[in-house]
Every structure is written in structure tokens, then in C-alpha cells.
């Protein structure tokens, strides 16, 4: 059974950025290692993950995804597990990436909000990539298929410049 699409679907269910997807894939690797080489059961597998990411921030989605990832690990073939992980990694590399330039770091909950909108509007398999830049206050910069455009406050200011100038002149 080819579990790669299921693993990818599960990762995309909980992860909205490339980094999050890679982290969940790392979690899946840890779970697989624990399952195949430490004979860990589900509870142990959760404990291992909790211990591993105890000091990490914003890891809620890790644990939300654990039940499904554990099941996937358990259903995987021991002899092909690393090949599967490698295939999943390659497949994740091929997914479309939408890069957003934002002025501040966003937590997963907000990323999920943005990711849900993006997948429901643009592409259901899209992965986000956030780059922090103070230049994109009041919005974001968007890079898609090699084209970048500023939709930050500067963009809205330029778009409304005539109205603003008119307002300023009429003051």
C-alpha cells in the first residue's frame, strides 16, 4: 500500500507552511523510528514527541496531528519507511508554495486562518512560506510563481494616494 498520499494529506491537514509540513514530517519520522525500532506503542510514541518538543513553541498542531500520524506510522512498512518518508519529502517539495512577506511573526492559529483561506480560494494543496519583513506593515507582500507584489500598507497608500492628497489639499 502506497501511504505517501495519505501521509501528505494528513500533513496538509495540520500544517499550512512548508516549515510546519517539514516539522510534521519530522514528527512522523520520530514516530516511525519509535514504532519500528523501539517497539513503542501509541502512548509511548506520544510521550516521545511530547518530550522531544517540550520546549518548542507553538506546537499545538503537532499534538493535534499525532493520532493520525501514529496510525500512519503503524500502517507503514518497516522496510520501506525511510523510502516513504523520502517520497513524502519530495512530494512536499513539489507542492505549490505561496510566499507571504509579513511584518511580524504569526502563530500557527493565525497561519491556519490564512492557510484555510488560501487553500479554499487558490489551491487546496498550497503551502505557505512566511518571510518576516518590517517593510510590509498593514498587509503583506505576495510572491506567487516567481512574481512578487507588495500588498502592504504602502500599496494601499499608493492606491489611495489621490484621495489622500485630495483630502490633504482640502484640509
Amino acid at each position, binding site marked *: 500500500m502506497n501511504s505517501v498520499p495519505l501521509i501528505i494529506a494528513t500533513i496538509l491537514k495540520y500544517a499550512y507552511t512548508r516549515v510546519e509540513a517539514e516539522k510534521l514530517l519530522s514528527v512522523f519520522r520520530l514516530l516511525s523510528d519509535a514504532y519500528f525500532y523501539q517497539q513503542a506503542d501509541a502512548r509511548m510514541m506520544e510521550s516521545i514527541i511530547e518530550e522531544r518538543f517540550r520546549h518548542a513553541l507553538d506546537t499545538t498542531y503537532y499534538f493535534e496531528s499525532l493520532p493520525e500520524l501514529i496510525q500512519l506510522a503503524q500502517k507503514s512498512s518497516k522496510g520501506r519507511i525511510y523510502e516513504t518518508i523520502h517520497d513524502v519529502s519530495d512530494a512536499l517539495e513539489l507542492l505549490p508554495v505561496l510566499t507571504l512577506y509579513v511584518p*511580524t511573526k504569526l502563530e500557527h492559529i493565525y497561519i491556519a486562518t490564512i492557510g484555510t483561506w488560501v487553500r479554499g480560494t487558490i489551491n487546496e494543496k498550497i503551502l505557505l512560506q512566511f518571510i518576516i519583513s518590517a517593510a510590509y*506593515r498593514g498587509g503583506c507582500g505576495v510572491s506567487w510563481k516567481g512574481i512578487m507584489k507588495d*500588498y502592504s500598507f504602502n*500599496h494601499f497608500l499608493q492606491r489611495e494616494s489621490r484621495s489622500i492628497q485630495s483630502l490633504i489639499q482640502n484640509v
Partner: protein
Amino acid sequence: MLIIGIIVSILREKSNAIVSQQNAENIDIDQAQIKSNSIIQSALKQARALLVNAELSGIKEVVRTRHDSEKLEQAYEEHLHELVKRSEKHLEYTTRSIEDHYVDLFQKAEKQIKSQMTDNQQRIINELDLALDEAHKLLTTQTQATHQQIERQLEAEINDAKKLVDGYKNKRMEAIDRQIGELVIETVKRTIDKALTPEEHTDLVIRSLQEAKQDGFFT
């Protein structure tokens, strides 16, 4: 007298001819002489008669001639007198005619000169009017052309000045707008991060993505 002489001469020639003829023909001289004498006597008689008649005629003629001469002289004098009178009249008439002619001529000349002067004056006036009209037209045209040229120059200068002012104004406005914009942006930038919550940041990101979608950025 002349006639008598002529007659005698003729008779003598006849006599001589007869004599010569007699001599030539040797006719009886006596008879011939008697005949010739008789002829001569007859001739003389006729001659005398002729002479008397001639003298009478001459006298009559002289008298008549004298009488005619007086009449002629009188007629001549009358005629001469008449002629003088007529000449005087004619001279007077001629003088008057000449005078009238010259008066008329002078009047005509004066009239013609006046008419000519009037015509000349009118022609000069007309020519002056034409010249004035031409000058007026030329002046009007030149004035209009000059006026238009001045208007164009003024308009061009005003436009240039307006462009200059507008350009300066636009540059100043752009600079002011830029400064205001920069000031607004800087103010917003300084406050936006502090003022916005993560939810608001998220909403702004989604609004930006919606804007990008409306722009067709994702197609």
C-alpha cells in the same frame, strides 16, 4: 478816227489792188480812174458819214460816260459808304462776336477748368479715399496681425509661465505630498505594529490576499 483810218486804208488797199489789177490786165485806165475816184468819193462820203456818226457816237458816249461816271462815283461813294457802314457793322459784329466768343470761351474755359478742378479734386479725393481705405485696411490687418502675434506671444508666455508655475507647484506638491506621505507612513509604521493585534494582522494579510486575487495575481 481809227475806224476812218482803217476804212481809208482798206480802200487804198482795194484801190491799189484794182490799180494793180488794171495794170496787170491793161484795162482802160480812165474808166478805171473815174471808177476809182467815184469809189473813193463814195468811200470818202461814207467815211465822213461814218466819221460824223462816230463822232456823235463818241460824244454821246463821252456824255454818257461822264454821266455814268458821276453815277458810278455816286454809287461808288454810296456803295463805299454802305460798305464802310457794313464794315463797321461787321467789324462791330465781329468784335462783339469775338468778344462774345472769348467771353463764352473764357466762361467755358472757366467752367471746364472748374469742372476739371472739381473732377481732379474728386479724383484726388477718391484716390485719397482709396489710399486711406488701403492704408486703413493695411493698418487694420497689420494691427490685427500684430495684435494676434502679441496675443500668441502673450499666450505662449503665459502658458510657459503657467507651466513653470504648475511644474514648480506640482514639484512642490509632490514634495509636500511625498513628505506628508512619508510622515503618514512613518507615523503609521511606528504605531501600526503596536496598535494591531495578531487577529488584525491576520485580517490585513487576508485582505491583502483578497486584493491580490481581485487583481488576478493568482491566475
